[in-house]
């Protein structure tokens, strides 16, 4: 098991390198730093000195990947790639355009993100699985039909509608909770209720339908027929046998997103003015603060890969048939 884990972790390293190379190419080869400087300073009529000063301020005044002017290791280390991209491997993200340390921002902003993402995730999972089980239990009845129709309709509605509609109905019309904002400590709860609720409702269509398909597929397996033939009541078949086995495919889809909960939701956080990582990213995109966007891309990929490794591990824990190769 331990050796297997080590192998999985080592396998993640080349992927992270790949992510780093892709983002670097995207940010520095599509437009050269000179172009970016000209764009940031505005228009075509920018003096060469101003461009150089902008590049020096940002730390882009080095060759991109190979510095021929230096000796030894410095040929590689004194480059934009090493200074800006390779350093992310030790989680040194540098500073954003506003001069603040990106690493510090991430450490403080991840808590509000988690405060929304974790409840949304847990409540959502519980709701979706219960609904799906209900539909599977009453499959091919009017209840199931109505449920599926509701699911398809819910899936077809834009997520923006749920947010705007929810804010209008709950905050503006009924005045139950504030429209947006955030507070420290336990007072934050009233700011969190609505985003969590909307997050859960927004995902209900697609998830319930997906889990229902998994459950019904499982119900057609031979061991279920055996269980029924033995005379087990339908509820025992469903909760004792089908649910436990069907949770394996559910698990793989779910574990992989757990680490990414840190990142929060871009749209949700910006609509509700929650100072999390999601709104941080949106601000960075709108301000064209590429340092922050690069850091978030790296962080997101890192968390996804952690999720992949966790998925493998959880697989081996819940399914005794899976062996470590």
């Amino acid at each position, binding site marked *: 098991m331990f050796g297997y884990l080590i192998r999985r972790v080592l396998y993640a390293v*080349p*992927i992270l390198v*790949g*992510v780093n190379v*892709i*983002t670097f190419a*995207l*940010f520095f080869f*599509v*437009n050269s730093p000179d*172009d*970016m400087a*000209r*764009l940031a300073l505005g228009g075509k009529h920018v003096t060469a000195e101003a461009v150089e000063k902008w590049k020096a301020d940002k730390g882009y005044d080095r060759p991109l990947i190979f510095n021929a002017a230096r000796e030894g290791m410095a040929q590689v280390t004194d480059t934009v790639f090493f200074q800006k991209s390779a350093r992310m491997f030790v989680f040194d993200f540098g500073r954003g355009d506003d001069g603040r340390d990106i690493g510090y921002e991430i450490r403080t902003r991840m808590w509000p993100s988690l405060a929304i993402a974790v409840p949304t995730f847990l409540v959502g999972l519980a709701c979706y699985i219960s609904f799906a089980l209900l539909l599977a239990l009453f*499959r*091919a*009845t*009017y209840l*199931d*039909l109505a449920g*599926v129709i509701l699911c*398809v*309709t819910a*899936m*077809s*509605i*834009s*997520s*923006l*509608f749920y947010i*705007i509609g929810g*804010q*209008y109905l709950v905050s*503006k019309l009924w005045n139950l909770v504030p429209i947006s904002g955030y507070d420290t400590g336990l007072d934050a709860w009233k700011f969190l209720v609505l985003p969590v609720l909307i997050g859960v409702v927004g995902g209900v269509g697609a998830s319930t339908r997906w889990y229902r*398909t998994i459950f*019904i*597929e499982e119900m*057609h397996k031979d061991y279920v027929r055996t269980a029924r033939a033995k005379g087990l009541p339908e509820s025992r078949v469903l909760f004792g046998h089908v649910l436990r086995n069907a949770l394996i495919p559910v698990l793989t889809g779910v574990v992989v997103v757990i680490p*990414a909960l840190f*990142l929060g939701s*871009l*749209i949700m956080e910006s609509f509700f003015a929650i100072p999390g990582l999601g709104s941080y*990213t*949106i601000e960075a*995109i*709108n301000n*064209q603060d*590429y340092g922050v*966007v*690069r850091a*978030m*891309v790296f962080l*997101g*990929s890192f968390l*996804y*890969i952690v999720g*992949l490794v966790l998925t493998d591990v959880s697989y081996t824990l819940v399914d005794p048939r899976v062996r470590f190769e």
Partner: protein
Amino acid sequence: MMAFKPVILWTDALLFLLVAALLAVAWHVGRHEHLRAPWRKVAESRTGMSAAVLLALFVAIGLLDSLHYRPRLASDGGTKVYAVETRSVFDLLVGPLRTQVEKTYSAPLATHLFSKETVDLPGGGQARLYPRLAYGGAHLEDPQRDRAADLARRTLAGLGIAALAWNLLLAGVTAWQARRRDETFGRTWRALWAGETRLPWREMLITAGVVLAVAGPVMAVAGHYHVLGTDKVGQDVLYLSLKSIRTGLVIATLATLVMLPFALLLGITAGYFRGWVDDVVQYVYTTLNSIPAVLLIAAAVLMTQAYMGLHPELFDTVQQRQDMRLLFLCLILGVTSWTGLCRLLRGETLKLRELEYVQAAQAFGVRSARILTRHILPNVMHIVLIAVVMDFSALVLAEAVLSYVGVGVDPTMISFGTMINAARLEMAREPMVWWSLASAFGFMLLLVLSANLFADAVRDAFDPRLTTRSTTRVLFARLAARGRT
């Protein structure tokens, strides 16, 4: 002397290329019984075909809106001068919707502006009041007295025309079916309404009837009122909603078009050759997959935006810039979204390559390229088709979200995302400006819902592994059985 100059934007060309390709595929399928069989199942699906009627309407609007031209301005002395503004055939058809621009917001079917203005009174002096609209209900003498009656009259006239059109359609379809079935008109009519035709004509005609019943009155009223109100700069919201359809369709179809070659080529070769090819492909898609999709799209869009900002000389007109950005967005969406389908195809090819017919082909010495195109490709096509139709609606929804984040289409381009974005800022207004949001969401729901329902019908027909039969079919079979006993 041409009174216009055709303009073929990149997305137009690709869209029509796609239509041509689809027609060619349809012709090919029609000639092969084994390919036709699953499509016949799609055609027999009641919800699927009703959705298809609606979807066809959207596609027709989108295609009409893709025929662009630049009208000629009054030429002075032989030199031809064309307008800078590119229009589409659709703009021409809905004429007044495009040109009747008010000053600012007005509610649906309103005759007065939504906000008060200081107006000079005819007898001297000034007053703060809601001014009359320049076009909406401008023909009414006394709006308060006449509006309801005028609207009712126009609605009735629209309904009348719709009823006439629907009856013509009914008669046409029945007569055509009667000829095909070699039966009398009356018997075909009864069979049609009893739901005994092979294709669900009854459901399709009802859907068409509902569409006509809505479209007829709207068309009758739209020339003299703003049926869905106007937006901040006074543009008709109905016009904006209809124009948004094209943007949604372009993104949903072209992104798929970009994604397909990557997924097909890499997925099949990885599964078939295994070894280092498989390793490389798996590495590439895991790497791309591990970057959060929105961030990857955001990064790519930011960079193309910067590139286009630095090279303004590449574009003659605003429309060309919009179009280029739309094309880039499709490219980016395609390049970032092929990984899921690629993984599915790789898995399926791994299974197929062990089957007897593939091994037989290998034993006969058939070249790999031929095995791939002749034996593997046709047998994974159902996966491709299901993935494509399922992705369609997701891409339409994604456009709105991306535009909100600021990495979607050009902010000046009409799309559901930009409509929602503009309207969102007016949420705080009292009373609220709700019509822009409502129509954007409403049209989007119709488009996505019909796409989803059609996609379900396609999946039910094409997925051989689908052990569970569709709920509706099981339910109806049960009810029918109960009725018989």
